[in-house]
């Protein structure tokens, strides 16, 4: 059984996505690696797919490893960072 999850977009992922969100279908017990694969299949732009490989996924409180279960409704994708 699948479920829908909202992925919040930041940085370069906002390019071409004015609402800064994507909805992706994933299996009920999907892990972050499954979400990454589902997003790769969804993204049409080659640059975005390349950026996806270097990006992390996170909740509002922590960055997740690829083997962690995807949280309930919303997750953020974080491309490589460069503050300051």
């Amino acid at each position: 059984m699948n479920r829908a999850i909202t992925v919040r977009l930041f940085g370069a992922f906002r390019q071409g996505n004015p609402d800064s969100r994507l909805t992706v279908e994933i299996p009920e017990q999907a892990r972050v690696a499954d979400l990454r694969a589902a997003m790769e299949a969804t993204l049409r732009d080659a640059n975005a797919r390349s950026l996806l490989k270097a990006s992390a996924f996170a909740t509002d409180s922590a960055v997740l490893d690829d083997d962690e279960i995807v949280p309930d409704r919303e997750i953020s994708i974080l491309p490589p960072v460069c503050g300051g």
Partner: protein
Amino acid sequence: MIHVDITEAILDPMAALQHCCSDAHGAAALFIGRVRNLNDGRPVTAVSYDLHPQLCRNIFSEICQEAIDQWGPDLRVYLVHRQGRLEIGEASVITAVSSGHRDESFKACRHLIEQMKVRAPIWKQEHYVDGDSEWIKGHALRSSD
């Protein structure tokens, strides 16, 4: 004592020094990161900062706590970052630390800025003289393949 924030308002170095102040502290170190007009030989007119607000505050607090754990429980620590579009010369980030002696302040202040740059979920988009814009390549947070 820790103060962290993200803001669209102009950063005030005096606010940092007021937080990092104690009668027991003989030293205070302050770092200001500013938008410069050139990157990789390309003239820059402005920089837009995008960030993840909740996670940013968490990571900032974590980094500040590390400084306190390493250089002393009485440290006063300050880390604030701007968001939105900044013009050349505007401050994008301020880090500050006060402590009993200068060595702890210098080292802890350096820790804040260096760790913030590689761990905080912040992204910058440079705007150029020719009207083009580009998201700057950064440091990957991904820990596994």
